[in-house]
């Protein structure tokens, strides 16, 4: 029934939709209550179908992409279709708890996700952070992932399996860093994290394949830590959000229109605040743009969150730059014949190099974040294989002697949305633009914090305050007041 009406929508039956509620002339006279019900049902169906109306029929000029066009207006526009963006969109609809409520639109300029950080991530989740807010976010995300089918299950669809491997994280500390690690573990224990400290002897006993030279102490996470498949999480969030009515379009935001332009040419001081009225969404490979009138804009553009705020249209006086830049990181995979077995955790070495097991067939993947002065050029995602040969492999082979003979496999590069101010996420409302919110800058742990950040932002939008997680310290104000909230455990 629905399909027939949908197919008729763009063709000759366009008129039929309007007459859906009217009874057929030759049918027996229905009781008026049933007629009313049919009219209401018809109106519901029209609401469901109206987003599909123009431009989504089966015909279009050849060569022009047939993706859905953005609507002319939306209540909330989420810029960025990565895991953080879809998490915000999902939580907005889930917490709203109302059908046909607000219209949420997710815009992603790269629908193949060729450069998105989400799908290129190593997929780890840990609670071993030094900042309590990060610990809370990770714990919330862990319980979200544990009950993922309660949250993201869609009727008549197969259940979600993120393939979580609960193997824990193992941080090794050299004698200089031992005190810092122990202090961090103390903070974590106070927040209720199950983490244990291991001496070199205990480490050798538990993981005999480690060479404990230069290791003073190690911290081993015992619960809700491990790794999972980020692509599955992204598609599950997307599928559930779309089943709850979120719209998704491919397009890039390249212009803002704010209420500051409504003011007469400047007389008096600059505006103290303004509101974004419209965004200009440019379609792929096109100079056309669709102005989308919106009430709230959420910046979930990940590594390009800072660049989004440099976009034309935001008034100079109200610009508040976000110190978020893309930083390229490599991940290398290799095969080792007699490497660490099933008990292998996600190991982070004293030198910063890290690796984890991938599957059960002897494959591993790992990498290392380079020091500040050796940052690779982030303009493309080409891989520098000599980085593995010269920097990563020697360090890992020193730590795990079995890795001295390995067979390198594939490698790829992805971006950290690096917050150069203090390497922590920025979550909250813009100080001057009253309807712009941001959730970005997680500097390498955005994937594991996405469910939590999405929920926090959705609560901020729907209720005006944080309820489940108090992330007020991660807001813009610390950037404005130049008070860094440093995260020590950035891998």
């Amino acid at each position: 029934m629905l399909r027939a009406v949908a197919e008729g929508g763009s063709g000759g039956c366009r008129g039929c939709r309007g007459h859906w509620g009217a009874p057929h002339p030759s049918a027996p006279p229905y009781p008026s209550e049933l007629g009313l019900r049919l009219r209401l049902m018809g109106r519901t169906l029209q609401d469901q179908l109206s987003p599909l109306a123009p431009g989504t029929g089966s015909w279009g000029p050849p060569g022009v992409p047939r993706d859905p066009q953005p609507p002319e207006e939306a209540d909330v526009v989420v810029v960025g279709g990565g895991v953080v963006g879809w998490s915000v969109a999902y939580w907005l609809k889930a917490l709203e708890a109302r059908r046909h409520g607000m219209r949420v639109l997710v815009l992603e300029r790269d629908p193949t996700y060729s450069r998105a950080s989400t799908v290129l991530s190593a997929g780890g989740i840990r609670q071993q952070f030094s900042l309590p807010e990060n610990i809370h976010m990770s714990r919330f995300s862990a319980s979200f992932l544990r009950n993922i089918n309660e949250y993201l299950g869609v009727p008549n669809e197969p259940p979600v399996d993120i393939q979580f491997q609960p193997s824990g994280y193992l941080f090794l500390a050299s004698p200089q860093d031992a005190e810092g690690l122990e202090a961090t573990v103390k903070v974590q224990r106070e927040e209720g994290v199950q983490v244990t400290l291991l001496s070199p002897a205990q480490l050798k006993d538990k993981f005999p394949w480690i060479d404990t030279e230069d290791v003073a102490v190690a911290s081993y996470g015992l619960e809700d830590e491990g790794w999972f498949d980020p692509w599955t999480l992204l598609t599950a969030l997307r599928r559930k959000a779309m089943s709850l009515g979120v719209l998704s379009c491919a397009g890039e935001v390249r212009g803002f229109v704010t209420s500051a332009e409504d003011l007469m040419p400047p007389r008096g001081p600059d505006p103290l605040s303004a509101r974004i009225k419209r965004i200009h969404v440019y379609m792929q490979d096109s100079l056309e743009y669709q102005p989308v009138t919106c009430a709230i804009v959420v910046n979930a553009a990940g590594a390009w969150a800072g660049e989004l705020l440099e976009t034309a249209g935001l008034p100079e006086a109200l610009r508040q730059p976000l110190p978020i830049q893309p930083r390229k990181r490599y991940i290398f995979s290799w095969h080792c014949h007699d490497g660490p077995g099933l008990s292998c955790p996600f190991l982070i070495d004293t030198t910063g190099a890290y690796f984890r097991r991938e599957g059960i067939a002897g494959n591993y993947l790992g990498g290392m974040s380079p020091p500040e002065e050796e940052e690779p050029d982030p303009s493309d995602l080409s891989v520098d294989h000599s980085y593995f040969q010269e920097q990563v492999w020697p360090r890992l082979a020193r730590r795990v002697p079995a890795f001295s003979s390995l067979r390198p496999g594939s490698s790829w590069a992805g971006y950290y949305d690096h917050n150069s101010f203090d390497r922590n996420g920025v979550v909250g409302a813009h100080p001057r633009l009253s309807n712009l919110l941001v959730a970005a800058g997680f500097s390498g742990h955005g994937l594991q914090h996405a469910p939590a950040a999405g929920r926090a932002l959705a609560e901020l939008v729907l209720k005006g305050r944080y309820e489940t997680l108090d992330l007020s310290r991660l807001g813009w104000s610390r950037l404005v007041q130049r008070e860094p909230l440093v995260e020590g455990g950035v891998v």
Partner: protein
Amino acid sequence: MRGGRGHARGAGPGLGGLDPYLGAPYIWGSPIGVASSPIHMGQPHRGCIQPHTYGAAQPHIPPPRTHMHLKDIYGPNVAAAAFTLSLGGSVRYEGQEQWLRPHGPWQERVLQLRSVPVWGLDLSACPVTYSGLGSLEPLPHLAHLDLSACPHVDDWTVARMRALAPSLRSLSLSRCPRVTERGLATLHHFRELRHLDVSGLNVPSPGLVRILLEEMLPGCRIVGMELDTPPKGTT
């Protein structure tokens, strides 16, 4: 109140309300071992999710007396035994030959044996979940645990059993549909394990997983996952 709201739906007084999602039934007017869970999974998801505070600045209001856990009143042995028996499982105490089965008036027996350590729990085919394992956690003498064919036991649940590792000598996870090799990888904490039954599990390349398990648990005898076992579902 957290425990109260979750149990209100479908749970009656006394031995009513078996709520598989919470894994902890409503008994004697007080919930047993309700671990913290972010949503009240006893309620169907109608799009309205109850908030649970994580580190939010709210004053701590102590729960009313009726919601104190059995663990706090009678001790861990009673909590674990009552939990198991009310789910339909059996309990064996240290020094006893017979298994205590959930037929007849077991409550008085459990209370009589409150200071006798629990030696073995048979929870096969019971609806025990991740949060239900909280009732079993402080059991320092548990040596035998049978979780075969439990429909809700998954990799997260297996990982949570780490607290029982110091004493457990025999574990069965056979035919649990949701346990995979990823959960089995967390069994390396179980140094005292001597018998592990992993037959009928859904894993890719069972022969390889068995070899890896034997490598991980050298002193343990592993049952199931032979190399020439036919794939699950065929005879």
